[in-house]
């Protein structure tokens, strides 16, 4: 596992020039009239480093209702409230945040498992929130998901062969019938499981092995994007490393783009090229892993990072721990202005009145410093909490 205090050499090489890869780029919307056109658009390849998935002002409100027969809406849980980001081909975008901040809802929205209240998700310029039927099925072939809990994400009444082979039954055009068994065994081999295990049931495997089965199922349709919703948080630490390494290997092998949702900051840093920090349904800060971990400018990110355990006792002594007071406010009734202001030590009147935009803070605009990345704070300033 990556030690957050350790300098990640790969990150330096990956670190693209900051101003050329802004978080949100222009969406090249494709207007496809028919299903065939949509399918043609979705099959077109995307260059490495080009945006493949563009999320714009994504909103998901879950209505709160009252009454038994005639349900009245009395409010809404604002699980996701205006999130925008881009995912580039071949990269890993980490999304971190504490429980209930809307990470998993974002994942479900990207998979169109939930209907977005507002906003768009452009996959290759095609707004997938408005697709249905055959076109949506074509999208599903290209965007797949790995689930958090390997103990509930595999049907206990199906053999491993049936579980991994199910994608082929749903999308018969991907693999001809006679070929499927061999393909399933290939997939088992790819994820490091013995292909002989094809007739076993999920409960005969360990947690790590089950997660490999879940990854194999996600890979079956040869997708371009895999959304990982806390894929390792249910696993032992030793097994976490194996699964993470496997996922990195597969990314190189199959040219995948990952959205990696987690609350373990060390793992996210290890696997991610860019990281977005969410708080109460909004993106607080987003940038490359170096920018976020070494040069955080949003107070919430700084607080989160200061909570990462440091294994070195002597380094620990000199470090400042930011302890936030209070609880996360209810997403049904979020604070006005900046959502973090109720727990922020920098909060002033301005924070209650104006919603801070997710943009490069004014004081850093034009400067070639790692702090010049997007941060939704009126008083953004650099504070190195990891090394201090």
């Amino acid at each position: 596992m990556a030690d957050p205090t350790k300098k990640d050499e790969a990150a330096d090489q990956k670190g693209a020039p900051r101003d050329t890869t802004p978080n949100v780029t222009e969406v090249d919307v494709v207007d496809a009239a028919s299903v065939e056109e949509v399918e043609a658009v979705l099959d077109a390849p995307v260059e490495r480093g080009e945006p493949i998935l563009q999320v714009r002002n994504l909103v998901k409100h879950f209505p709160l209702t009252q009454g038994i027969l005639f349900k009245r809406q009395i409010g809404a849980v604002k699980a996701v409230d205006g999130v925008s980001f881009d995912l580039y081909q071949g990269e890993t975008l980490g999304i971190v945040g504490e429980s209930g901040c809307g990470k998993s809802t974002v994942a479900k929205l990207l998979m169109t498992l939930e209907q977005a209240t507002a906003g768009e998700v452009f996959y290759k310029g095609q707004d997938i929130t408005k697709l249905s039927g055959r076109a949506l099925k074509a999208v599903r072939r290209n965007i797949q998901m790995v689930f958090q809990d390997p103990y509930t994400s595999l049907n206990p009444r199906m053999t491993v062969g049936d579980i991994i082979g199910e994608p082929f039954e749903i999308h018969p055009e991907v693999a001809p019938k006679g070929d499927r068994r061999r393909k399933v065994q290939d997939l088992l081999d790819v994820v490091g499981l013995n292909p002989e295990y094809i007739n076993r049931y999920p409960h005969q495997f360990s947690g790590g092995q089950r997660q490999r089965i879940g990854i194999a199922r996600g890979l079956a349709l040869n997708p371009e994007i895999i959304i990982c919703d806390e894929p390792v948080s249910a696993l032992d630490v030793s097994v976490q490393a194996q699964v993470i390494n496997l996922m990195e290997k597969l990314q190189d092998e199959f040219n995948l783009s990952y959205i990696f949702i987690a609350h373990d900051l060390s793992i996210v840093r290890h696997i991610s090229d860019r990281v977005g920090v969410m708080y109460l349904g909004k993106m607080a800060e987003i940038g490359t892993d170096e920018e976020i971990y070494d040069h955080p400018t949003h107070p919430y990110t700084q607080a989160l990072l200061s909570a990462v355990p440091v294994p070195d006792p002597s380094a620990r002594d000199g470090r400042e721990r930011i302890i936030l007071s209070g609880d996360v406010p209810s997403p049904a009734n979020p604070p006005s202005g900046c959502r973090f202001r109720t727990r922020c030590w920098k909060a002033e009147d301005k924070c209650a009145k104006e919603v801070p935009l997710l943009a490069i803070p004014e004081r850093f605009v034009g400067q070639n410093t790692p702090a010049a990345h997007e941060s939704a704070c009126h008083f953004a300033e650099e504070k190195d909490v990891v090394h201090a």
Partner: protein
Amino acid sequence: MPEIYDNPQSGPGTRAGNAAVAADRGATPTSPKAPAAGPSLEDKVREEKARSLWGDAWRDLRRNPYFIISSFLVVLLVFIALFPGWFTSADPRDADLTNHFLKKPELGSFFTADWFGYDNQGRSIYARVIYGTRASIQVGVGVTVIVTIVGGLMGMLAGYFGGWLDALLSRITDVFFGIPFLLGALVVLNAFTDRSVPVVIGALAFLGWTQIARVMRGSVITTKQADYVVAAKALGAGTSRILIKHILPNAMAPVIVVATIALGGYISAEATLSYLGMGLAEPTVSWGIDISSASKVVRNNPHALFFPAGMLTLTVFAFIMLGDAVRDALDPKLR
């Protein structure tokens, strides 16, 4: 990475061949290489591993004496119902008033017409008990099958789709649940003059499906939130595939348990209705009818009541005990 290839004998070389044949059979293709004591141990390990959830339940059940007793009784009863001629040569409708009117049982003469004595019309009670099994088993199994299909379907649709369909189906279920079972059956059966086995089955199923529907609905609601259902949706699976492949196999266990226990209840309900004169009617041979006629002479001839009533009790007991054993085996919390 210790968990990869944890079977040391399955190298890449043996892979293709093993997989082509069913890969998880008890016989290990690599066993000839192992020492003499090796294969049997490995076979044991494999056997232990190659089991599903039902396989686990079966392993539990095989060792459960209650299951062994009750399943033996149920199998025996089914055989009696299917082939009553194998168990007695006497005719249950052969009334011999001169010789045998209320003759006491001769417990020493096994399996003869005299064994359990004769009833007030001079018919062999043993033959009537044997032939009466068919009506009881028919009613019990028939009602259970219909109730499981109808109630299961209703519960599955209500639980899976929710919303207004759930509201509608659940209210219909509540209306039927509100009708007292026996009173409702009496009213329904009163409308029929010819009360044969299918009519009684229909009447009991008409009132009995609500129990299964409720269990199924709850079970489906739990199952549909599982991640594997979400995963299937994410793959683009249609509703019918999700219902048949994912929801149904995982939601069935509690329904099977309730249905097995309820089966005994339907048998006793049939007997109750027959006793009250609203169930099966002569010339059908049924324990309920015999209990009814025997009750008039019970003070001097208790044997006429004892044998059909005992048989009924034994049957209901066998099915309820079977249901209990299956529930214990399927409930992972009791493991």
